[in-house]
């Protein structure tokens, strides 16, 4: 009768065992590790909203508007920097476009973005039920809105902050930038303040419009109409009806850009307006827009 040979020595370890490597198929398990707080939830919702708005991870048709707006915003800056490289010796690029005046070249991009971004970020969630999904997580209405405001601000900053920054960096490399590090930092600070002023007012106004309707197109059209109509109405009142120049302040689209001129210490397009009134009206539009959004969302019945 054949007997199996007695084990003489343990079998040699496999190469994987010798190296300590192993294949672990964990599968679904309970999780008892650390958990992040509401801050991560806000970041995650903001980032997801930005990705969605820019069409990242979505079919090509969703990328058309963002790419168009970004192109309109950056092409002038790239052109001006290019000009400073080519003809910088005979022409001061700052005479073509200074930092405060740059926004005049990209008004269309900013308008397009302001009209597109906030409705995309806010309206969809209310219509398709994602708002209830988000509010079933650690997010509250207030923290959800913070996430969305951050998303709109950062997305608008792509067209309000990026191009002037590119201009500053390009001019600096071509020795056409501010004189010395001190001036350079002042210009940098002014660029950030300007971008924040434009973003703040437009974010608040466009989010207010987006909070009032459940139709994305209506919100976008509302923002664009407001941006186009308010300068016309202001002009009609001041120039046509010869009312006080202060009626310019109802021009919701021009006032943020007027504030940019004041930040750069320039008289702007409406020198008859005091800087204080320009600051106040921008603050008013920003706070008013935020108040509308908060009011609307506090009254919203969200079930399931």
């Amino acid at each position: 009768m054949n007997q199996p040979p007695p084990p003489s020595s343990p079998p040699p370890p496999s190469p994987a065992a010798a190296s300590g490597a192993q294949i672990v198929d964990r599968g679904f398990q309970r999780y008892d590790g650390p958990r992040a707080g509401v801050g991560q939830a806000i970041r995650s919702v903001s980032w997801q909203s930005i990705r969605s708005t820019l069409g990242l991870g979505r079919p090509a048709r969703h990328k058309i508007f963002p790419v168009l707006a970004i192109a309109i915003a950056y092409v002038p800056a790239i052109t001006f920097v290019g000009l400073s490289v080519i003809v910088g010796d005979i022409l001061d690029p700052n005479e073509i476009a200074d930092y405060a005046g740059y926004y005049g070249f990209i008004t269309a991009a900013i308008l397009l973005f302001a009209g597109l971004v906030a409705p995309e970020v806010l309206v969809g969630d209310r219509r398709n039920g994602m708002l209830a999904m988000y509010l079933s997580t650690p997010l509250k209405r207030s923290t959800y809105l913070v996430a969305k405001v951050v998303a709109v601000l950062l997305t608008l900053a792509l067209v309000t902050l990026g191009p002037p920054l590119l201009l500053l960096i390009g001019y600096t490399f071509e020795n056409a930038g501010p004189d010395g590090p001190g001036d350079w930092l002042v210009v940098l600070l002014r660029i950030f303040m300007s971008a924040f002023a434009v973003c703040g007012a437009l974010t608040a106004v466009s989010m207010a419009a987006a909070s009032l309707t459940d139709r994305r197109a209506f919100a976008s059209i509302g923002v664009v109409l407001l941006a186009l109509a308010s300068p016309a109405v202001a002009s009609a009142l001041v120039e046509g009806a010869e009312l006080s120049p202060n009626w310019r302040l109802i021009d919701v689209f021009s006032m943020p850009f007027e504030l940019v001129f004041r930040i750069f210490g320039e008289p702007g397009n409406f020198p008859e307006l005091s800087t204080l009134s320009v600051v106040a009206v921008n603050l008013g539009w920003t706070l008013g827009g935020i108040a509308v959004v908060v009011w609307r969302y506090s009254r919203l019945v969200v079930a399931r």
Partner: protein
Amino acid sequence: MSAIIETSDLVMEFPSTRALDGLDVRVPSGVTGLVGANGAGKTTLISLVLGLLQPTSGTVRVLGLDPSIDGPRLRAMIGYGPERNVLPDDMQAYDFVRHFAQVRGLPHDEARSRASDSLYLVGLGEERFRALGTMSTGQRQRVKLAQAIAADPSLIVLDEPTDGLDPVQRDEMLSIIVDVNRKFGIDVMLSSHVLEEVERICDHVVALDAGRLVAQGSMTELAGALGGVEVELVDLADLPGSIDAVERQLLDRGVVVRRLDFSLSVSGATDDELFNAVVGAVASAGARVKTLGRRRRTLDDVFTSDIVASGQPEGAS
């Protein structure tokens, strides 16, 4: 047994309707079915449990916390699968599940791996990078379940999780839900208007009707063996009076008989005596039996005959 959800005299009024009317509910650990017709108040109760709505009066406590005070802390421990089709068409299933795992507090890397694990658990491992818009209703329901469990909650609340599924998909979904509870110890509350599926998988039931509590308790308390025998007979064309004959013979033996069309519900003696009586009566009348078994009370009975007809809300436990 400690309650995971407890409400006391809970009232929820909307401008035009009183959706919940003095609800006292106690949901223990396990799989609990929230049943009732459309408009019974199921979704309103779920919304209150999640803190999406503030009650008009009364209290709610979920996992020992008050949703209106400890909402964010509580909701970090709850997964929610909504009834509505909320999934964004352009997004991949994996991205959707990972995103909500992160929003519910999982660190980035953990959210990534658990998104995959959850999708594998619900049977969508190979499909996880597909856009949600290209998925079938059954697959989308599974994605909703995957996102509900990905952050490893203590409790998941599923609103009509089998809605729109065919019978095979429904069986699979119910089986996964049971696994989530039995294998991983995650408590489940699911709403459904299909009583049969609740009866099949739930340990406990909360039954609502028009915003009022109809019944609550364990499945064995509410539905199960009643004592007695139920026989369903075939209506024979060549023996038109056979069912009447069976009924008459049973009544002659002194047992209680309730007849509904071709079914006879027989009680009033021991089960063995009743089986013998039924078999004897059927043989004597020449009738043909379709089904024969012990009498059971179903959830349908709870709704239709015993409680709703009496108009008296009742708490079985």
